[in-house]
Structures are given as C-alpha cells and as structure tokens.
C-alpha cells in the first residue's frame, strides 16, 4: 500500500457565476501516473491552478503529505516540490535553454545577491555545480547541444521537453503535466509517452497528467479521474473508465453511451466477418 501524496478534498473554485471546479475529491498515491481527463472546459486546468497556487479555491482542502497547501503562494508550492508545465508552452523565451533550466533550479540554490557580488567561495561552488546540474538535465530531456539556443528558437517538440526539464530542475516530488503531447504527431507522442513513463520509473516522481489523447492516457495511467462541468464523474483504471457510460456520455453527449455501444457492436461484427 503506497502513501497518498496529494489529496484533494471537496475543492470548489468559482468564477463569478460559474463553478469551474465543484466538490472534487481526488487522492493521488505516491509514484502513480494519475490522469485527469474530461471534455474541454471541464475544469481540469483550473484544478491544476488550484493545486499549484495560481488560484485559491473557495472551498475544500488540498493536502500534500497531509499538510494543507491550498492558498499558499505559488513560489512556496514550488519550494515544496510541486512542478508543473503549461497547456500552451510558457518558457522564458528570450533566455537560452540552459538559463531556463538554471531558473528552474532556483529553489534549490541559496546564494544571495551579496554572495554574487563578492563571489564568495560557496557562491562559486554552487554556481558551477548548478551549471553542471543544468547540463545534466538538458542531456536527460534530450536537448544536448541545444543549450545555447534561445528558447523561442527551439522547435516545438523540444520546447515541450525543455519545459519538462525546467520543471524537473526543482527536484519535484510531484510533476503536473498539462497536455504534454498537444500538437505532436504520432511518433513524437509515442516518444513523449515513453519519456513520461521513464520519469516515473527512474526518478520516482508522482505524475499528474491532463491529456486529451486517449491512447496516451489509457496506455500509461495507473489511475484516471474524469471531470465534467467541474465535477468528478468517474474514477478508476483505464478499463473501468472506458466502460463507464457516464464518461462516454460526457464526451459524446446524452445518448452517447447507447450510440457508442452500437458502434462497438458494429465494429466487432465487422472484425469478426473479416476474420472469418
């Protein structure tokens, strides 16, 4: 039995008259790849923003190792070891790739502005150590040789990787990935899926994933929650979610479950007729 690393309890987030996240309860066990799926506008990114301190939820609690973190400022959440990436990539575009990762290292470093001016011994040591660490991470996410490129000049796929690299620099306990394969082709998606799995297996990081690509979600998730109109409508492993009529309805509209059943049968009969 693994520990619960993040526990979302009855969280509500309200914008004006719109309840973007409504009474959501989610427990994320340690070292899981936990996916949150749902149609557009279901409140997934809002939930992410609540966890990472961008928004303060109106109600409910978010526990990290049992300590409440809702309402903490974003930088403290990062200090605790929660890193994230963004739906539309948000890198520091006018800085180089290495510098992006060096900024990611920020919470792990201690030197102050005064150390920087007088170049104390600890500063020099820390600085050269952080450069080495940044280059190691750069290599890890597969950007070796691209380190001195400005982030805005990198190709799209590498920008995504760099964003993950920056998030990893923080030595996170939990990594929140917001649609990491959006805009990628089949090959890149497969690569990214493999990479996410590797992160969990090699570094032991818990991963919370928002994703629209069902192939990715079903392939790597240990557990899945489905949000619709801000509410959690289902939770389970891949097979359970696929079979859940409420989920299908949320995606395909009312009556969608029956429709999907019909198509499934058609497909099966088609496959059978071909097999025979």
């Amino acid at each position, binding site marked *: 039995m693994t520990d619960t690393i993040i526990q979302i309890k009855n969280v509500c987030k309200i914008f004006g008259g719109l309840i973007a996240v409504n009474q959501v309860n989610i427990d994320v066990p340690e070292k899981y790849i936990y996916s949150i799926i749902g149609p557009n506008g279901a409140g997934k990114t809002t939930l992410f923003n609540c966890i990472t301190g961008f928004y303060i939820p109106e109600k409910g609690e978010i526990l990290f190792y049992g300590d409440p973190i809702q309402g903490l400022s974003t*930088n403290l959440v990062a200090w605790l070891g929660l890193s994230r990436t963004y739906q539309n990539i948000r890198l520091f575009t006018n800085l180089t790739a290495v510098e992006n990762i060096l900024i990611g290292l920020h919470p792990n470093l201690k030197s102050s*502005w005064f150390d920087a001016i007088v170049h104390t011994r600890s500063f020099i040591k820390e600085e050269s150590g952080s450069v080495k660490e940044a280059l190691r991470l750069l290599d890890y996410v597969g950007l070796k040789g691209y380190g001195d490129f400005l982030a805005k000049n990198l190709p799209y796929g590498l920008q995504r990787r760099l964003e993950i690299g920056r998030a990893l620099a923080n030595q996170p306990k939990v990594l929140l990935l917001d649609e990491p394969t959006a805009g990628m082709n089949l090959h890149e998606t497969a690569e990214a899926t493999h990479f996410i799995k590797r992160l969990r297996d090699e570094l032991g990081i818990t991963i919370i994933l928002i994703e629209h690509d069902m192939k990715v979600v079903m392939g790597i998730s240990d557990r899945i929650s489905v949000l619709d109109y801000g509410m959690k409508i289902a939770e389970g492993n891949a097979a359970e979610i696929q079979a859940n009529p409420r989920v299908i309805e949320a995606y395909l509209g009312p009556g969608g479950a029956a429709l999907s059943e019909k198509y499934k049968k058609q497909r099966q009969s088609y496959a059978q007729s071909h097999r025979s």
Partner: protein
Amino acid sequence: MNRNLFTTSINKGFTFGIVMIFLVLIDFEVMAATMLSKLLGVNVVRGALPEVRFMIIFLVLYGLFVGWFASSDQEKPAKKLFQALIAGLTVAVVVGLFDIALNQLITTGTDVRAYLAALGPASIKLFLLEKGALGSLLHLGLFTGASLLGSVLKILLKSDPMSHFLKGISTVYRDLRAKTQAITPNWIKEYGKYLLFLLIGLSAFFLPRMWGSYNNYVLGLVGLYVILGIGLNIIVELSGQLMLGFAAFFAMGAYSMALLNAPLPHGIMLGFWPALAIGVLMAVLAAVLLGLPVMGMRGDYLAIVTLGFGEIIRILLKSDLLTDFTGGPRGIQDIKGPTLFGQPFSSDIDYTYIILVFMILSIFIYKRLERSRTGRAWMAVKEDTKVAEATGVNIKNSKLLALCLGAAFAGLAGGIFAARNQFTGPNDHQLMVSMNILSILIVGGINSVPGIILGAFTLKGLPEILREIENYRLLVFGGLLVFMMISRPEGLWPATRPNIEKDEGNRQKAESPPGKGGQHD
C-alpha cells in the same frame, strides 16, 4: 499599378515636404548647415550664420535621402527613378509654395518672430539661398536633382555587381581576420583582454590630466549617467519594472550630500564619504517605502505611480513646506568636496577619477549580478511573472531587491553629482532626468553595458560637445524613442545571452588531459 506607384510617391514627397517645412520653422536647417560647415572644416562663430554653400549641401543631402527612401526596393530601376522624380518634385512643389510665402514675409518686412520664434529674416534669407524669390526655383532644381541622384545611388549600391563587390570585401575581411587569428600567439589570445583593460585603465588615468577641464566635465557627466543607466537597467530591463520616477532616488542621494555636507541650511559638514554612504542608504530606504505598497502592481500602472512619486518628491523639495529644511526652489549651495587621506580631493581631475572608479565598480557589480541566481530570477520575472513564481521565485522580494539595488546606484550618482556641481536644487531632479536615463537604456540596448555606455555618450556626451544641437536635443530624444520602438526595440547594441553550454564544454575540454578529447558526458 502605375497609378499606385504615382500616388505613393506623391504621398512620400508630401510627407517629406511637410517635414522640411517644420525643419525650417524650428530653424533646424541653419543648425544642420552649421554642423556641416564645422565638419568640413569651416568654423562658424557662435551666433553667426554659415555660408550658403553649406545650406546647399544640406538641401542636397535631404534630397538624396528623399530619393533613397522614395525608390522602393522591389521595383525595376526605371520605376525607381520615376518614383524618386515624382517624390522629389512633390517635395520641391510643397517647399516651393512655402518659399513663396517666406519671400513674401521678407519683402514686406513682416517679422513673425512674436509667434514663430525661430523664423528670423536672416535664416529665411539663408534658406532661400540669398536669392529671394529665385530661391524657390533653385530649391526645385536641387530637390528634384538630388532625389534622382539618391535613387541612382540606391540602384547602384544595390545592384548585382555592387553587392558582389561588397560581399567580396566582407569575405576578404573575414579571411584576413581568420588568418590574423591563426598567427596571433596564444598568449595574446588569452591575455589580450587584460591588455585591452590595461590600455583603457592607463588612458583613463592619464587622459583626465591632459585634456582640460571641459572634457573632464563631459567625461564625468557621461560616467555619472552610465552609473544611473546601470541602476535603472537593473530595475527596468533586468526585472522588468518600468520606472519613470528614477530621478527621485537621484534626488535622495543629491540632497543627502547637500544637507549633510554644506554650510547652509544645517551646517552639519559630515564629510563627503559618510554623506555619500548615507545618500545611498536614503535612496534604498525610499525604494523600500515606495516598493512595498506598489510591488504587486501591473506594469503600466507601476510606471505611472513611479512617475507620480518622482513628481511628489520634486514638488515637495520645491515647496514652502520644506524650504527651511531643503532650501526650497533656490536649492543648496557650496557643497563641500571629498578629501582623501586628509588631502582635499576635489579638483576636476579628481572628480573624474572618482566617477570613473565608481563607474567601473558599478559595471563590475552589474556584471556579477546578471550572471547569478539573483539576476536569472529577475530575468525570469521579467519574461513571465506567473511562471517565474511557479518555478519558485519569490516575485515580490525579487522585484523589491531590484528596486533597492537600482536605487542605490542612483543615490550614489546623485551624491557625486551634487558634490561635483557644489550645488543641487529641485530643477536637477525633474522628470526629464528620469526620461533621459530611460532613453539611454532604450537607445543603447537591453541589458548591455556597452549599449549603456554608448547610449550615455550619444545622449549626454555628444550634445555637450556639439553645442549647436543642444536646443534640438530633447526633440531628437523624443523622435528617437518612437523610432527605436518601431524599428529596433532591442536597442543599438543589444546584449547576447551567454553560451553557458559551450563555455562549460570548453572548460571541461581544457581540464581533461589532451588526447582524450574531453568527450565525456
């Protein structure tokens, strides 16, 4: 198609004509002709007018510019010539009509200087090339001819043989550079930088003794503005907070020096160095007091709030309320200079040394800050505040630190400034001072020390040397700001990002024993 060509050329010509009229209205053409005359070695006594031929040269240059600008890049040579002809003619017609009006003024002896201050009869006569009504015809010829010539120049310079030629020159140059690099011994490569520094240091030591107090004054002014520019650069360019009231911190430094080290109004006479230190501290204190409440504010609001802060400080310094304390509008005089090891150290030359030392120190501190955890955090905040926060940067502390450090530089420059002038008053700390420093940054280049030095020299040094341009300095500033934002927002000499990966690779290669090649991960 041709009609389109025709109308755009007419439009361009019309614009240039109007610009020319405005130049005449502000007497710019006489200033330009004077400058040309001095450039070509004919000195003009202050207050006198240059010779007619220099006016002709100025008009021809203007015409060349019109022709160059009017002939568009994509068109064929004949069409380019056509465009230049039309534009030149339009300029000539617009200016010609204006000439007739001017001539009317001259012949009737009307003096319009009560309304248009710069339009004196002598400069009108000069503009009409001392020929009266005939001047407009001469202008017609000059503008059209020069415009055509400009177009021809453009055609020639952009033609294939010419561009081949230019490319050839650049390859020869590159080859030459590669060859010289190949034959320079290693020790020059390695220590050349230090040699250069030594050279600069020696000239910085000896030049102030040799070239007279006026040059020292200009050099000191440029140096002070470099310090100010570096301070504001930390606030505006590194941490991304547009600050329009920087002069307030400058005033803190200057007034601390004045109040603590002048016989009136308080007669504390604390001495230069302690007063300078207190000035820096006061500037930092002001930054904290301003910064804490406004730190979370959006960029453009912050700009306006800081502008308001600067104005409040200035008005307060000037007001009756503080006259007993700060000397009011008259300012504070007779500020004592520094002493060093018991000796007075306050001649022109000494101040130049002080300023140079502090300037180098500022550059040094700035460079170290920029390439540190703190500096990177600032840049992250500037690039994307939200993401920087989510990466673990404490936004408020980071911005406040930038504000304080920037203010410290301003306090330092303010203290030296007041002591060097032996005077400070509210008019030393106007909004224009803040704007000048901001212009230095924007013209010079983002986060680039050479850019700041270049900017300080162009915007503060040049106008001091070229006295004629003085009246037009702020006008040119304003125009330059708009122009730079549109065409080159990164500045004249933008900074490049450091190549950390490459440097680290090179360092590892150098460390690992030769032969292995340093190809480890």
